[in-house]
């Protein structure tokens, strides 16, 4: 049953090229498929499909582009050397020099490096990438990013150079779309956090806010790991009230400490303070000053309401006593 469904995979490809290829070439394509399917047996795509689905899709694209039998066979075998234990000697024995050599060049090829004018290899690389980009959502995020960038920067220009506008257009669209999706995810994930950080930082004094926000945003942008980024940001946000208080106090100290200090050293305040200390040193001197004041307040209240005057007589002296004591402690 396995073989049955596996065989059916190659039939559409054979049907596609049956009018163009000779019987011998058709047999070779079928043989290339058999070899590739055997070596990729047990391997799976990230999408969950059997691996052989990918070489067949690339070969179908090659056939659709009107490429010859060697190219279609090489497309079927293009990952055998790189991803399986199959060696070039085996391929050479089965398929001869032309196909093996092409597969070897294809395996060694990296976009942006080496043989930039090997059109056969570039053509197959483009078709390979086209199928990979169609299923890129199953790959890890960082690989999605690097592959999409590479596609836009290196492969789309090659497709245009080789006169494959449809391939170029589709590659460009797939890569752009993927980058947009990734940017959306990244932005969406961190935007709320960054907004909260900016909002929270409004409580900080302005110069410090500018500096620390720049510092923190730089830390967040240069760090790769998104989860530790978010943790870093939220812990900061929770600490912002304390931080703002510290910075404001520091700013206040810087600005006013000198003024208060100078004022305290100036003659009127110094003598005033000395006099106050002298008065407060003894209870008698304090009450000589406070008794007339108390009496005046009591008399004023008694003119309005005798009851209130009694309450004042009872409550005012203890309050004044406490105030004197408080001042004595401060000025000592």
């Amino acid at each position, binding site marked *: 049953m396995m073989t049955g469904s596996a065989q059916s995979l190659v039939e559409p490809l054979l049907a596609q090229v049956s009018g163009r290829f000779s019987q011998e070439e058709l047999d070779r394509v079928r043989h290339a498929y058999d070899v590739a399917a055997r070596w990729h047996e047990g391997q799976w795509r990230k999408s969950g499909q059997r691996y052989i689905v990918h070489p067949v899709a690339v070969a179908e694209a090659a056939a659709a582009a009107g490429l010859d039998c060697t190219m279609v066979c090489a497309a079927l075998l293009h990952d055998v050397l790189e991803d399986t234990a199959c060696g070039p000697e085996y391929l050479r024995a089965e398929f001869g020099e032309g196909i093996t050599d092409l597969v070897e060049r294809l395996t060694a090829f990296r976009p942006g490096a080496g043989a930039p004018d090997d059109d056969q290899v570039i053509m197959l690389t483009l078709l390979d990438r086209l199928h990979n980009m169609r299923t890129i959502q199953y790959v890890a995020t960082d690989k999605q990013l690097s592959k999409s960038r590479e596609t836009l920067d290196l492969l789309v220009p090659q497709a245009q150079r080789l006169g494959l506008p449809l391939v170029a257009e589709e590659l460009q669209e797939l890569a752009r779309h993927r980058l947009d999706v990734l940017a959306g995810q990244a932005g969406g994930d961190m935007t709320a956090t960054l907004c909260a950080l900016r909002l929270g930082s409004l409580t900080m004094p302005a110069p410090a806010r500018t500096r620390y926000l720049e510092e923190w945003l730089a830390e967040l942008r240069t760090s790769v790991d998104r989860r530790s980024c978010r*943790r*870093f940001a939220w812990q900061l946000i*929770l*600490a912002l009230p304390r931080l703002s208080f510290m910075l404001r106090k*520091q700013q206040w100290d810087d600005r006013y400490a000198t003024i208060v200090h100078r004022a305290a050293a100036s003659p009127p305040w110094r003598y005033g303070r000395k006099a106050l200390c002298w008065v407060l040193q003894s209870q008698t001197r304090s009450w000589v000053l406070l008794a007339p004041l108390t009496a005046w307040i009591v008399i004023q209240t008694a003119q309005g309401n005798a009851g209130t005057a009694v309450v004042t007589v009872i409550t005012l002296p203890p309050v004044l006593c406490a105030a004197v004591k408080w001042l004595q402690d401060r000025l000592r």
Partner: protein
Amino acid sequence: MSRKMPRMTLQTQLILGELLADPARRIHGFELCAATGLRSGTIYPILVRLEELGWLDSEWEAPEVHVPAGRPRRRYYRLSEDGAASARTALRAAEAGRLKAAARLRTAGA
């Protein structure tokens, strides 16, 4: 002013220890978080305090470094000369306090 001391909490001691491990090294906030295992919300108030006391110097990364690297500039921290000396003294004092407390516990236990 230099007489003033930060509160020598365990977190402050951790940070000072990390900075003292190589006083010439410049370190940025995220790196310090990773190195000490402390939260960013713990580290920054301590950095602010230490910088205010003059124990720490901080500076922006030079454009020759961050521009080719294609990232925004980082702020780097390093112990000032006085700061390194004060930090060493403070850490030693904290360590002595710990030892004394441990000794007292031992005698109390015995």
